[in-house]
């Protein structure tokens, strides 16, 4: 047995310091580590640099709360429940945040490179677009490209010398201080088993210097090791573990619960202004902890989202049924 990796939600949030770079598990509105995200907001974390394969509600909640200085990614929104990221949009218009745009595949390949210790990735995606417009290198314009955590260049063009394949773009490895993951199961020693799509979780965990895994349940390590070929992330890649049922709410968790669409819709429509955001945060974030948050949501709402074990999602109520 290794050293004890268990921590609390509060301790998890405290590991992320003002000015840290941060990334997350999940995909748009699925498996986002919300219980810790809420706690970061409660702890008034500042100057965060989010580096995300893609954004989602967690981005919007943190950006709206003023926790974020730099957002480096490709997309933010709430899917069906809110077409774009209104908080980010507002802060962009007000020039309160630096946005560095890459394409989705570029962000993914940047994490693949970071996870495999390569300084950069090679791709041919998005050639000819304004993503590669040299005038739109926002971290460069802000003088933040120190070559340490933030690469000296946004990208570098070259030509394929091996197969005369045309233009090639090199994008820098993602280097991140902390990855926050939210998954179904983690073992006591840190082994992670994700059910369903694992999105970019393995790359995100490996690219970060510190990896914190929040899980629906902490299970005996030996249980997971009985079928090692079904596990997603190895024990020693995980530094800290937190058990937190429903920790992804309002985002969904394959096999456990669906996305809370009405909650996200309310958030989207209510937080287009800063006043709206502050009111929402006052009601749903500050002064609560995870348990009182669940109490506030209430049993009917939570049970309505519960996944069917044969399907791994919550089948929609048919018209007239209930």
């Amino acid at each position, binding site marked *: 047995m290794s050293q004890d990796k268990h921590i609390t939600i509060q301790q998890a949030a405290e590991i992320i310091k003002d000015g840290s770079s941060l990334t997350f598990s999940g995909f748009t509105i699925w498996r986002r580590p919300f219980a810790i995200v809420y706690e970061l907001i409660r702890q008034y974390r500042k100057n965060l640099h989010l580096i995300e394969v893609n954004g989602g509600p967690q981005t919007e909640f943190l950006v709206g709360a003023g926790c974020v200085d730099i957002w480096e990614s490709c997309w933010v929104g709430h899917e069906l429940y809110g077409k774009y990221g209104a908080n980010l949009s507002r802060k962009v218009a007000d020039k309160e945040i630096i946005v560095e745009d890459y394409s989705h595949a570029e962000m993914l390949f940047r994490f693949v490179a970071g996870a495999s210790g390569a300084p950069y990735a090679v791709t*041919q995606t998005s050639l000819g677009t304004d993503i590669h417009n040299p005038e739109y290198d926002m971290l460069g314009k802000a003088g933040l490209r120190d070559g340490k955590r933030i690469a000296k260049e946004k990208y570098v063009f070259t030509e394929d010398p091996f197969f005369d394949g045309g233009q090639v773009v090199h994008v820098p490895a993602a280097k991140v201080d902390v990855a926050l993951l939210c998954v179904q199961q983690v073992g006591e020693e840190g082994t992670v088993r994700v059910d369903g799509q694992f999105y970019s979780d393995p790359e995100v965990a490996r690219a970060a210097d510190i990896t914190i895994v929040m899980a629906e349940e902490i299970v005996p390590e030996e249980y997971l090791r009985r079928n090692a070929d079904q596990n997603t992330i190895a024990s020693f890649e995980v530094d800290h573990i937190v058990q937190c049922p429903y920790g992804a709410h309002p985002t969904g968790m394959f096999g456990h619960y669906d996305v809370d669409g009405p909650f996200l819709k309310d958030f989207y429509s209510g937080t287009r202004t800063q006043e709206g955001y502050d009111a929402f945060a006052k009601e749903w974030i500050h002064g609560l902890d995870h348990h009182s948050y669940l109490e506030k949501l209430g049993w009917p709402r939570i049970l309505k989202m519960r996944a069917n074990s044969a399907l*791994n999602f919550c089948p929609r109520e048919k018209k007239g049924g209930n």
Partner: protein
Amino acid sequence: MSDFASPEEYGLADLLCCAAAHEVQDNEVVFAGTGLPMVAIMLAQQTHAPDLKLIFEAGTLDGRPLELPTSVGDARCEMGSSRASGLNDAFSIAQRGYVDLGFLGGAEVDLYGNVNTTCIGDYLDPDLRLTGSGGNPDINSFASRTVFIMVHEKRRFVENTSYITSPGWRVKKWPGGEFVHRKELYGSAYRGGPSAIISTMGVFRFADEEDGHMYLDTCHPGVTPQQIQEQCQFKLDVSRIQGETLVPTREELHFIHDVLDPDEIFIPKVKK
């Protein structure tokens, strides 16, 4: 089989969905985004293209969802799929050249099929920041054909997009930014480009590979080429028009409303 529905039996979303489904050929590998394209692909799967292979960007390969997903990361995507994994699989497969067709959306499009989903106005001082690229440029870079589904407004069919998020047939060569044919950049990774735009007014295609400008292929029922030109900032090529967009069949409407989207998540039923 040409059991076409009468005008009061279908809505605009039905028409777009069926037009999109018709773009799919059987056995193709198809990359789907969230929303109407999902329904369109699943409709094709139910009708003329039972062996299409559906890929969701978040990481499900050859999926056969039982219930309509609301996003590509949805737990519903996994059901019946050949492999549920992650983005590295999906994008590696795309870059490797497996994808025949991708469905995408956009806020603005220009004559060469360059699409913007990033911002309205000057990027450095935008009027409105949008969602950002997502996988739009990636799918558009790697698929042999891409089809865009868009709302048709004059502010969306523009002379110059505020930002080129997703590459059309003539794109910017950096560092200078002069427009060149996409072949010149993509080299051996070149496999095609935008093949159709299905707007709320008509269906548009692109002239031969070398030129790559948009032309009007069909008008939706009740819409004239002139009305469409009025809703384009650029001069639209209407010389090749083939008539009217095919309307949905009753069988297609049955699949859309009784099988695929009974809860009207993406496609509302027509009030009769």
